[in-house]
């Protein structure tokens, strides 16, 4: 932040800024030197900020009308949908917003995986990101319980029962989580409280995430360190602001399509049946964004090991900066890694698919193979690739790639730079 000293022009501004340097901060954010070759995959950071704020604002509104009581929750949601002014709109934005949030976060994570954004010196950004992702899953799960439909109730029962896998204290923990001997009113009220709390924790972590980002600056599609500010960078405002805005609008069109035309397609029909502790729905399926982990859980025949496998699948990501031994960040210059990357993408999609299918026969076998491969990718492929792979020559800067003959340069977004030489 101390690359350039900023002095406000007006006297009042200077007086204020000497006491609380908000203007310095604003100046830092607008002038923040950003690599000029960022592609549209980099716009998802801004989109995610939009998602978080949308969820918080619509959530606050819903909390004004929602009643966290086992006897009234379902009815209060119907009240929101029918009687509250624009209630149906706000609830559909909130419900579909969760899905859009996860869609964006997955793209954001896979962008990072492709371009090696988790590597030194950006490990802390990455780890904060993983914590945010974990909290998002918690918030999404807790939120799904609130309408108190059949999927809410049985999802809550199944997920909280995961803790019973812990030896000795497991059962005690589950009873403690429930505040009773089954998922009931005490569970609902505490879930509501936590669902309300978590987004603000996420907001705080997002500030840290961005702060940590602004120390080394953005990674970029060719993954090289660049001088800042330089010919390789543009100021955040207006260049990146307008570009992020454009991408955000495209995203909002998709979002609006879901909200207005297929608002229930991403949810499960059973959640429009009020919770009934005596009847379990025929198929219990989590929301689509949790399906890959659900598949991993079910692919392990042992209860405790299944839970451990599922948790490790997420936590292993935190160790990624050290599991990936390659010095080259961007997959653009790593021909082998690039192939393994797409195999991983396919693997996760397959896991998601079998997660939605019954855990039997061929599906179970596929789930097991895919789970094994998932761990293999992180624990074996990545460490070995770093030593074995023959990477391509990397340019020295974005604008002036001092390098001839690399065919891959054409795919790097600096065609103009080449043209001008």
């Amino acid at each position, binding site marked *: 932040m101390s690359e350039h000293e900023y002095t406000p022009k007006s006297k009042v501004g200077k007086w204020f800024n000497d006491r609380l340097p908000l203007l310095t901060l604003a100046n830092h954010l607008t002038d923040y030197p950003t690599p*000029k*070759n960022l*592609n*549209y*995959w980099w716009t998802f950071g801004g989109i995610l900020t939009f998602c978080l704020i949308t969820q918080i604002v619509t959530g606050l509104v819903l909390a004004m009308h929602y009643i966290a009581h086992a006897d009234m929750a379902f*009815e209060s949601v*119907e*009240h929101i*949908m*029918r009687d509250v002014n624009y209630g*149906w*709109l706000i609830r*559909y934005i909130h419900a579909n917003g969760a899905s859009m949030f996860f*869609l964006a976060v997955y*793209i954001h994570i896979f962008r990072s995986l492709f371009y090696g954004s988790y590597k030194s010196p950006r490990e802390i950004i990455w780890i904060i990101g993983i914590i945010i992702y974990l909290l998002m899953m918690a918030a999404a799960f807790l939120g799904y319980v609130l309408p108190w439909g059949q999927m809410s109730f049985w999802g809550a029962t199944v997920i909280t029962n995961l803790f019973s896998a812990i030896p000795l204290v497991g059962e005690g923990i589950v009873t403690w989580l429930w505040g009773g001997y089954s998922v009931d009113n005490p569970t609902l009220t505490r879930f509501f409280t936590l669902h309300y709390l978590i987004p603000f924790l996420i907001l705080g972590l997002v500030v840290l995430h961005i702060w940590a980002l602004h120390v080394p600056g953005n990674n970029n599609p060719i993954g090289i360190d660049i001088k800042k500010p330089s010919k390789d960078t*543009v100021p955040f405002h*207006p*260049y990146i602001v*307008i*570009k992020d*805005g*454009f991408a955000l*609008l*495209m995203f*909002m*069109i*998709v979002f*609006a*399509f879901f*909200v*207005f*035309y297929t*608002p*229930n*397609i*991403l949810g*499960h*029909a*059973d959640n*429009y*049946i*009020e919770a009934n502790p005596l009847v379990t729905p*025929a*198929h219990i*399926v989590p929301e*689509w964004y949790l*399906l890959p982990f659900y598949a991993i859980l079910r692919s392990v025949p042992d209860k405790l090991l299944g839970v451990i496998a599922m948790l490790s699948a997420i936590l292993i990501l935190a160790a990624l900066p050290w599991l990936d031994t390659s010095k080259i960040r961007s997959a653009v210059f790593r021909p082998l890694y690039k192939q393994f990357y797409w195999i991983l993408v396919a693997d996760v*999609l397959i896991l*998601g*698919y079998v997660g*939605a*299918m019954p855990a039997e026969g061929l599906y179970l076998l596929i789930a097991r193979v895919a789970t094994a491969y998932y761990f293999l990718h992180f624990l074996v492929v990545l460490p070995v690739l770093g030593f074995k792979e023959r990477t391509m020559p990397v340019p020295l800067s974005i604008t002036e790639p001092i390098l001839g003959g690399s065919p891959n340069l054409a795919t790097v*977004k*600096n*065609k*103009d*730079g080449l043209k*001008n030489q």
Partner: protein
Amino acid sequence: MKNLFRISFFVIFILIFNINSNAADKVEYLKTEWSFKGPFGKFDRAALQRGYQVYNEVCSSCHSMKYLSYRNLVQRGGPEFSEAQAKAIAASFEVKDGPNADGEMFMRPGRLSDKFVMPYENEKAAQAANGGAYPPDMTVLVKARGGGVDYIYSLLQGYEDPPAGVTLDDGVYYNKFMYGNKIKMSNQLSDGLVEYSDGTDATVEQMAKDVTTFLMWTAEPHLETRHRMGFKAIVYLIILTVLVYFSMKKIWSRIETKV
């Protein structure tokens, strides 16, 4: 721009993938034209009014409609009965109110602000009267069934004699669209069961369609507003996107990098 195509491809992939994963049971439902489907879909007023009649004369003796009020019958985008008609409908039901000054509950004619009167006092009473099966509340029934309106429409016409080898207990009926084919509701519709005031021929098919339309409205009373608003919102977003796109091109033209 190439990347944008890739992003949209990804989105579409996820969408298709999700629809596939949700379609666990694959039964061919009976097909019919629904006026409320599609981005400009609207309810057929006459069908909603007829559908209310079928619900009232046939379904409501067992199935509650507990999230709906009589005032909703007047509401825009619904059956749009006149206020006088809806008041008359409400007044034809006895509503429990109270306690009065003596601390007693009393019955009075329904008002517009009242919720639909329930056929049974509570769920247990409903089960006791129906051989242990609870006739589900119908307000959001369409959204609570995977097949939606097509499922309800088909189910009402799906009664058949059981195939050879299937034995049915007392009070259980065979329906080819029911999950597991066994249903505790007997066939309710028969040709000419109700007499439509608008002269429409009350065939089973017609009644099934009308009552299903009505149930779609009770589940999504703001569907028409949603469709209208959605169209405006998306047109607006496209206009703004185009404007922002050209603004972006202008701004980025100051430097030699393409966006």
